[in-house]
């Protein structure tokens, strides 16, 4: 921690004019700073999206509640979904990928630093555009402001006739713009991983985080782009009088669904694969064992990527496809569970017989394993088309995908925060607050989303702003809302921890977890140039080799 650390815009050490600091951050092309920008940006939107979720839950706390109007309720669930997927989950995962991939493969930056900055700002302005709709959405028509057509904006709801004003346009353009940002980042990650690895780091020796982000980026290229294409069509319909989704002129509302879900389902895997990547780095370190089944892990990920491209219409069983299509999509959906199961066994195999350390990152990882398994199982339940006919558009579905996104993705992201925060800031997050955060969030999560399955099974539809007073529904909704508040408190603990530890946390040093990958070989935070001299690696765990010259991994390759 000598002169290396000074190269970083060291927080709080040198007082400089804030304009200068701001200018540096706005014009930066450094992958680490852009990674931090992505992450901070996502955290802000996490709070915004969380507030929207809270409004939804307060409205549903009892029957015939009038906390918000039905119109506002529609805006809230639309904005909540859009925000959480496009402006929380995507940026936070891109942020970590940006920060970690070059460090882990021994590179000094991404392949295209300026494209990197461009992609970030596209995403950032996309999010601002979406929220500007609250001010500018009514346009000349005095119609509703923020988008209220649901996060999937089914035709003809999003058509000009049914969504006058500009609210849907803000939604469309925000997603189009941030989509281009995602494509740019994906291209950048692919080029970085394929062309910037340090000497000795063959594809076989790459950390799994890099491998999985490579696969994720490949999926972004073919999964986000259909959404971009569909958004262009929607714009043509709305502005140029086109008829793509206009049933009055022979167009088809169903094809919008197809285009949306060709994006929408792989998107789930775009989000979960980087979380698999976090797990594959964190679980081995806290089990004190190398990852179990590295090649199988890579193979299973590639397999998921392929299979997940052919499952999209399981979101559309209720629109009345023929039986061949129903069977096809039911079978592929069940099949995608197989490689996912392989991964879960790999992580369990890594933990098996290891000296497990129950630090906060590991606690969140174990939470992830358990909840992601349950989420997968309810997914398999609904892949059976007849069962889906019964439950589609009910709260069972809402519970299922929140189990994936909160119980899976968010838990993994929290694990990543606790694991890499010391590297990013140079200080440890408080273990005490971390454990409090974990247990509060775990309890809140299960109170909310375990219980939420039941009103779904009882027939409560999603997206209703209120319901008739029925004893069972009211009690269950009350419990769900209480759980949401517990989660909110846990998030506050988390934010407190982030802020407090930034100033008061224990100094981390280079390698607080006794890790094995290259990012732990440099100072915390790393210098702007990452590596004073480009490292050379001879195995999958270069730092193990360095720490244990008597028994290096490279001997067994």
């Amino acid at each position, binding site marked *: *921690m*000598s002169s*290396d650390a000074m190269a970083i815009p060291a927080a709080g050490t040198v007082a400089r004019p804030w304009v200068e600091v701001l200018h540096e951050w706005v014009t930066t092309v450094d992958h680490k700073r852009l990674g931090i920008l992505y992450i901070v940006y996502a955290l802000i939107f996490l709070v915004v999206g969380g507030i929207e979720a809270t409004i939804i839950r307060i409205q549903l706390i009892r029957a015939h509640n009038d906390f918000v109007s039905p119109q506002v309720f529609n805006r809230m669930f639309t904005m909540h979904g859009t925000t959480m997927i496009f402006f929380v989950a995507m940026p936070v995962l891109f942020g970590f990928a940006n920060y970690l991939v070059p460090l882990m493969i021994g590179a000094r930056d991404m*392949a*295209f630093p300026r*494209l990197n900055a461009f992609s970030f700002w596209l995403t950032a302005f996309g999010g601002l555009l979406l929220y500007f709709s609250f001010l500018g959405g009514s346009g000349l028509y005095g119609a509703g402001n923020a988008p209220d057509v649901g996060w999937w904006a089914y035709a003809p709801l999003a058509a000009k006739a049914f969504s006058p004003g500009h609210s849907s346009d803000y939604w469309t353009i925000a997603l189009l713009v941030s989509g281009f940002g995602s*494509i740019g980042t*994906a*291209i*950048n990650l*692919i*080029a*970085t991983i*394929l*062309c*910037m*690895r340090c*000497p*000795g780091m063959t594809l076989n020796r790459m950390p799994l985080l890099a491998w999985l982000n490579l696969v994720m980026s*490949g999926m972004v*290229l*073919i*999964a*986000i*782009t*259909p959404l*971009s*294409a*569909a958004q*262009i*069509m929607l714009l*043509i*319909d709305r502005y*140029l*009088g*086109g*008829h*793509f989704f206009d049933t009055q*002129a*022979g*167009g*088809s509302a169903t*094809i919008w669904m197809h*285009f949306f879900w060709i994006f929408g389902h792989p998107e789930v895997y775009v989000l979960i694969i980087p979380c698999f990547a976090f797990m594959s780095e964190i679980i081995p370190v806290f089990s004190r064992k190398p990852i179990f089944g590295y090649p199988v892990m890579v193979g299973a990920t590639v397999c998921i990527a392929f299979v997940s491209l052919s499952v999209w219409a399981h979101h559309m069983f209720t629109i009345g496809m023929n039986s061949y299509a129903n069977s096809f999509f039911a079978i592929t959906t069940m099949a995608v569970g197989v490689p996912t199961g392989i991964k879960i066994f790999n992580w369990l195999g890594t933990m098996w017989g290891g000296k497990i350390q129950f630090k906060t990152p590991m606690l969140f990882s174990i939470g992830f394993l358990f909840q992601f398994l349950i989420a997968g199982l309810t997914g398999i339940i609904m892949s059976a088309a007849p069962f889906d006919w019964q439950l589609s558009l009910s709260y069972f579905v809402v519970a299922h995908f929140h189990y994936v996104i909160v119980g899976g993705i968010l838990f993994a992201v929290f694990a990543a925060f606790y694991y890499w925060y010391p590297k990013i800031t140079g200080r440890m997050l408080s273990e005490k607050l971390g454990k409090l955060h974990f247990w509060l969030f775990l309890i809140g999560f299960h109170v909310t989303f375990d219980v939420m399955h039941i009103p779904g099974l009882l027939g409560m539809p999603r997206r209703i702003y209120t319901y008739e007073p029925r004893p069972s529904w009211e009690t269950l909704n009350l419990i769900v809302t209480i759980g949401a508040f517990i989660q909110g408190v846990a998030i506050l603990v988390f934010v407190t921890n982030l802020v407090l530890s930034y100033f008061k946390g224990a100094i981390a040093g*280079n*390698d607080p977890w006794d890790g094995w990958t290259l990012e732990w*070989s*440099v*100072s915390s935070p790393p210098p702007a140039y990452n*590596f*004073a001299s480009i*490292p*050379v*690696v*001879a195995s999958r765990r*270069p*730092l193990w*080799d*360095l720490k244990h010259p008597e028994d290096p991994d*490279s001997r067994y390759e």
Partner: protein
Amino acid sequence: MSAVTTPISGSSLEWKLPYRGKVGMAGLIVAESAIFTIFVVAYLFYLGKSLSGPTPREVLETPIFFTVCLLSSSLTIHLGSKELARGHRVMFRIFWSITIVLGALFLFGTAREWHRMIYERGLTISTNLFGTTYYSLVGLHATHVTAGLIMLGIVLLFSLADRVGMEHAPRIETLSMYWHFVDAVWVVVFTVVYVIGR
């Protein structure tokens, strides 16, 4: 702790990775292919579903000449970048200019066709489903040709200032990858719109 930054100062091993420009462009091409695929699928799905005229058979004329222009520009750009790699700057400039002229001719062909269809046949993007899908698919491709021409034009300006040399050959090849892609897409669009679509 600086010793840690070089984990293993290993043997001098052979280490060569692909050129990042080409990999990046390949990524862009994959992404663009997916966008075009969606538009092509929409075109095919809506074939014959228009509720009113005009139909493709009534208004479309196969643009053979301009297609030949665009496809042969793939050859000239290839020859141009090969010349540059050998260090022949003048030959590069000539082939590059021919490529731009051929691309511009193609765009002129599209513009003429659109003008005829809009003013003589009364087909606009909002007339019927055929208009919507035709103008958006062909327009998407024409947008890509335009973007390509702008990039080619910038290179030509640099080349006229004698700033493009052998050391830029990998970048020029990256750009020509894009141009080949635009041509390949036209083969698909041509087949779908003018062969299958009629």
